[in-house]
């Protein structure tokens, strides 16, 4: 016979279980499927002339502090390697010419918009999201400012407005989502680029274009499209004349780091089976140890 008290306990536990399982189902919803026609950009670093007009266009588009267009002609900034910053979503760095060439290699740095972004996987409130159409976009309103995205990003791209006491934002390239997604226009940097070192379009077509350029001009290019496979692929692709390590791209596997944590997370918490089983086992342990103590006390 089950007493009323026990009955209440059992139903209470069952209700709790149901609630938690519902949470589990909600929380482990799969990634939005990527659109086969998703957008991307191809940077052909061998065409870049280091004019830095993309930096100006980006700052103009995204309301970042900047001087006039002429001030971006200053090449003394190439004396040191720069990184994207809260005041600049993109920067161009200059590397010395490859052996047998006299033209330096200018490399534009910005968010690569990973296909399986670690920052998106890390974000506690889904403030960062991968649009099925390509860009990794940020919603400052949702953001709580934990900066876990900055820990997660293998390319070390996101910057933070530490100086702002009240409404600091994570700062990174958005692939001009408001232009590319809403209006179908190219990102500001692409539109500005004089030598057309930047091409905007469907990622699948850009990938074909990149492979065609390598095939037609094998001496000019490193035989790998950067972004095709690295960390599960990126929406922004790059052609270079040298191995990625020589332009300070970290040596990363073809799998997104997010796979590691997502495997662990879902392994342990899928449907809350693990925690619920543990709850059950502990309940049995507690019951049997208390029974044993009663026996000991009585006997």
């Amino acid at each position, binding site marked *: *016979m089950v*007493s009323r*008290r*026990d009955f209440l*306990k*059992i139903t209470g536990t069952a209700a709790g279980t149901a609630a938690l399982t519902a*949470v*589990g189902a909600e*929380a*482990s*919803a799969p990634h939005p499927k990527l659109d086969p026609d998703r957008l991307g950009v191809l940077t052909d670093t061998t065409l870049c002339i280091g004019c830095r007009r993309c930096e100006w266009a980006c700052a103009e588009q995204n309301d970042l502090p900047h001087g006039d267009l002429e001030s971006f002609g200053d090449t003394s900034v190439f004396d040191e*390697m720069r990184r994207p*910053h*809260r005041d600049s979503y993109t920067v161009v760095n200059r590397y010395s010419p490859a052996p047998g060439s006299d033209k330096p290699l200018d490399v534009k740095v910005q968010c690569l918009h990973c296909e399986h972004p670690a920052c998106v*996987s*890390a974000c*506690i*409130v889904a403030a960062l999201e991968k649009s099925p159409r390509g860009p990794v976009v940020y919603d400052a309103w*949702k*953001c*709580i*400012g*934990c*900066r*876990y995205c*900055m*820990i*997660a990003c*293998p*390319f*070390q791209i996101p910057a933070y407005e*530490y*100086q*702002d*006491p009240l*409404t600091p934002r994570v700062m990174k390239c958005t692939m001009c989502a408001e232009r590319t997604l809403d209006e179908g226009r190219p990102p500001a940097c692409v539109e500005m680029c004089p030598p057309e070192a930047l091409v905007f379009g469907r990622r699948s077509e850009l990938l074909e274009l990149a492979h065609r350029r390598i095939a037609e001009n094998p001496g000019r290019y490193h035989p790998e499209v950067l972004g095709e496979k690295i960390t599960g692929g990126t929406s922004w692709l790059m052609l270079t004349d040298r191995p990625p390590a020589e332009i300070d791209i*970290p040596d*990363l596997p073809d799998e997104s*780091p997010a796979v*590691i*944590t997502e495997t*662990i*997370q*879902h392994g*342990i918490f899928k449907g809350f089976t693990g*925690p619920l089983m*543990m*709850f059950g086992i*502990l*309940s*049995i*342990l*507690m*019951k049997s*140890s208390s*029974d*044993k*103590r*009663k026996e000991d006390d*009585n006997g």
Partner: protein
Amino acid sequence: MADSMQHDRAAILDKEAPIAISISVDDPSLDHHEALPLAGRSAVPFFTPGVIVLSILAAAGLAVLAARLFFGLEAVTNFNDQYPWGIWIGIDVASGVALAAGGFTMAFIAHVMNNEKYHVLVRPALLTAAIGYTFVGLGVAIDLGRYYNIWHVMVPSMWQGNSALFEVGMCVMIYLTVLYIEFLPIVCERFIGRVNLPGVLGRLNGFLDGLLRILDKTLARVMTFFIIAGVVLSCAHQSSLGTLMAIAPSKLHPLWHTPVLPLLFLLSAFAVGLAMAIFESVLASRSFKRPIEMHVLSPLARMVPLLLTVYFAAKVIDLVNRDAWRFLFEANFRALMFWIEVGVGVVIPTFLFLSHRLRRHPVWLFTSAAMIVFGVVLNRFNVFVTGYTPPYGEGRYFPAWTEVMLTVGMISLIVVLYRIWVFVFPVLPAEEEVEHA
């Protein structure tokens, strides 16, 4: 006497309902008559020179907190785009969670395994966990750029089940609630029969007393659920805290980065939970000039070598498995930190705790426990701070003095709050119990 009557009654009930699937045990707040508030019976006054120093440090920490709120993170920290997390995450949050593990490990040993001997340690451990986790939450909030958005984590439309941080955040919030519920019987016990409001409010005394009695009875009925839930929630987020850094394989040094980081965090939490219970019990006894509870601490210490050995074995197997052991023999700062973490924090205390003689020696017992506490703090610090090697560094991160001051201030505040609570609430065992045993 009352206890044995309760047992008899329970035995009779069991006979009547032999197949009951109840998971109920005797009232888990049965340590009732074993604990008393220190106020009025303490050999030491509340204010001592040490308490005054701690209060000043706490005030300095709160001043840094005010500066952070008004002038922003940049004004008081050395965080930058390469090192977005510093000692506030490494020590205040990650180590804070680990050191509060005494709450669930003692609940498991004393309540789930029904080991009555250890009941005297449950309330102090519970109090440490409740205050500790409160400050973990506070520590997180201070570090957040938009702390006022912290409630977003509870909004279903913003839930993000892929995020290890989401799991940690949810679990910590629920567990903190569970800890407060587990502490409520102690508050009830303090005030039942003693509600004495001044003046006209005195008319409410009887009513409030009745409410407290109802609350106490209700809590006693459901406490089993919360005790088990507390253990499950703890295991979940102690491990998920390790999952956090697993997302940065290219940035976290191979001595620490491993997919089994969550397992290592959990195993070390078990060991440090017991070590903390010993560490704080000795500290409290010294501070309040009470006899050290060797009769429970020594047997508790006996369990520690096994837990440490399991943790150590997991760490070694993992290093060998990933071929990362070769980094141990590089002559650099990180390798040194690893050696200290494992040598001082795991290997040496394992041997110290194995010795029957040293376990019965208060100074050695305390030293060994302190080494484990140090080792786990250093481990969390290494995983979140020293082991973090971003690809494009602009020099290393070194904490600003204001960061250190806030951390020191918060720890001081925790100690002062612990003292206030044990003076006001029945947390520490009654003196005669100790002497009798």
